[in-house]
């Protein structure tokens, strides 16, 4: 058991899998010699050498295309897209090629690959370097999508993603890289498609993802002081989605809140709201409420960015107000 940063956990998870499986290779911009611009691949080049850990040109389509072609012919690549916003320059490879090829070929082609990426806001990087794109991927059949919120989950979900036979979009939250957590020694392998109840509670269910998880937990602590016992669920995996855990919680609490970093329209909370509204309609004691960044691009100034993103305070006050009315 050791304290590990979320950032270091990424390299640990990858290294764990590279040691046991020769087919795992890693590619991306500045990921080898420099250990990644977010330092999430430090040490991999030294341990595994330049044949398995490659720096690339600034050619995101070529990077993901290469990952795809390699995956369909026997390797298990982990490719980095440095900031998730850059998915937009290689979106075709992700959604039209990687997501659809197994289906279109009637199962002839397997694509065991992971695309890891620095996702999310809060670092004052402005509108082109702060987006939460997990929702873009969730909308496309054929992609699995995970977002860990703790260092331990980073290791275990990375291992699970690399072992999975399907393409996985692995969203690392940039705002969590510096955070630390206890991580058990030895091999860790988690499973995709599972949410985690981070804090049990009886009065309301709060669903959160990525950097919103610590904020939701802080909100819950705060609510507890005011007599509201909120359950906080870390969604962790958007596809597959652990609807069982979510619906089970709603059945117990009767109230659902989603805490989403994304701009409102078509954030993952919308899908969950629609599922709950359909399948748990009679369980609900009040409307499902979504707490999101408003539907605007993210401003860069620190004061404005803090203002628009959901905070522990805004979560707590929304939940409190809703439960009181």
């Amino acid at each position, binding site marked *: 058991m050791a304290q590990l940063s979320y950032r270091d956990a990424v390299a640990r998870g990858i290294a764990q899998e590279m040691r046991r499986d020769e087919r795992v*290779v890693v590619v991306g911009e500045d990921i080898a010699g420099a250990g990644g611009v977010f330092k999430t691949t430090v040490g991999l080049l030294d341990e595994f050498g330049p*044949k398995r850990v*490659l720096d*690339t*040109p600034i*050619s*995101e*389509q*070529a*990077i*993901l*295309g*290469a*990952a*795809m*072609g*390699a*995956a*369909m*012919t*026997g*390797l298990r*690549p982990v490719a980095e897209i440095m900031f998730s916003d850059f998915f937009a320059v290689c979106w*075709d*490879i992700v959604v*039209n*090629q990687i997501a659809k*090829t*197994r*289906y*279109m*070929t*009637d*199962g*002839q*082609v*397997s694509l*065991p690959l992971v695309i890891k990426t620095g996702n999310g806001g809060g670092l004052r990087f402005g509108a082109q370097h702060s987006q939460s794109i997990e929702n873009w991927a969730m909308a496309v*059949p*054929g992609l699995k999508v995970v977002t860990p919120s703790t260092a331990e989950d980073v290791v275990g979900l990375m291992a699970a993603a690399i072992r*999975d*036979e*399907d393409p996985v979009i692995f969203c690392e939250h940039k705002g969590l890289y510096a955070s630390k957590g206890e991580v058990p020694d030895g091999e860790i392998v988690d499973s995709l*498609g599972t949410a985690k109840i981070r804090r049990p509670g009886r009065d309301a269910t709060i669903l959160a993802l990525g950097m919103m998880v610590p904020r939701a937990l802080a909100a819950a602590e705060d609510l507890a002081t005011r007599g509201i016992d909120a359950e906080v669920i870390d969604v962790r995996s958007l*596809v*597959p*989605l*652990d*609807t*069982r855990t979510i619906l089970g919680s709603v059945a117990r609490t009767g109230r659902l809140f989603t805490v989403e970093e994304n701009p409102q329209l078509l954030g993952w909370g919308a899908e969950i709201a629609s599922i709950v509204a359909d399948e748990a309609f009679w369980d609900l004691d009040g409307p499902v409420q979504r707490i999101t960044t408003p539907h605007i691009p993210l401003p860069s100034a620190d004061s404005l960015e803090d203002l628009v993103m959901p905070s522990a305070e805004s979560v707590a006050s929304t939940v409190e107000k809703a439960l009181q009315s």
Partner: protein
Amino acid sequence: MKLPLSEHRYGEHGVVLPPERSDANDALDVDLDRRRQLYRSMREMRTFEKRAYDLFMKQLVKGTSHLSLGMEAIAAGFGAAMREDDYTFATYRGHAHTLARGVPMTPVLAELLGRANGLMGGKGGSMHLTSVEHGMMGSYAIIGAHLTIANGAAWSAQYRGSGQVAVCFFGDGTTNIGAFHEALNYAAVYRLPVVFVCENNLYMEYTSIHDITAVPHPAADRAPAYGLESIVIDGNDADEVHLAAVTALDRARSGQGPSLVEALTYRHGGHSRADPGKYRPSEEVEAWKAYDPLTVYRERLVRLGVSEDELDAIDASVLALVDAATEGAIAGELPSPESAFTDVWADGGWSWRN
């Protein structure tokens, strides 16, 4: 030959005629059995695609499809040069390349008809022909992407030390999309065993490549930008194609890296099922139809001593194959409803939730 930009005019292009007929390539170093194989291979593609066209006309093929009638020498010439375990990456215009890898005709035709016995059970259609067991790694319908994917297969072959080569076919119009550039540099940087083959048929869908490209040879004039040699070949001459293929494959297999080959050719028909191809000057179309790769090649074989009877026998046996495939395809069942829900994921299913 790159021209300075001052010679380019947007929207202006002349009639581009095929090379003069000549018997010079009779002397190329391709042995006669290989040449018989090339003839047969082209005849299979030709007969198969004409049949596919007839079936469209009978409303049996739904959706779109893209024929390579007139372009067979490229698929045949490369197909015959490839090792059994090499990889092919093709476009939506991929029937000929699929047959070139030995994929049987019945499932290909059945796929066009949307039948359960189709190559992908009806889920892919004409634009996505794939047969992994034959090294046919897919047909890709969005311009550019598959060049980057071919790199990945080449990378994997290099990593595994398997000696396999990836061959990637695409059109002239594809040379102007971003992925082309990324893929070529990427292949060169890692010296990947991949051969890029530009089938320059002078047109994108309905627009002349010369109208909207800054250099006259859309592929070959870009090769030096990646440290590669400019190579332009007669894409209607199966022998010339075949030898270029052998050279490029050898180069890749021996670790010297990628090649970019521009093969000049022409499609006899329109871009796709919907297109009568009226935007092309009839003088140009006629000249290229006369310079048909099958005609050119049949005449060569006859000059080299192969009898008309033998060639007719090949034609007849191919026709019988196509007839049988047609029967087999038409006899195919419709896909089962359940099959729409298989193979989204590796577990065989489509579920996105528990």
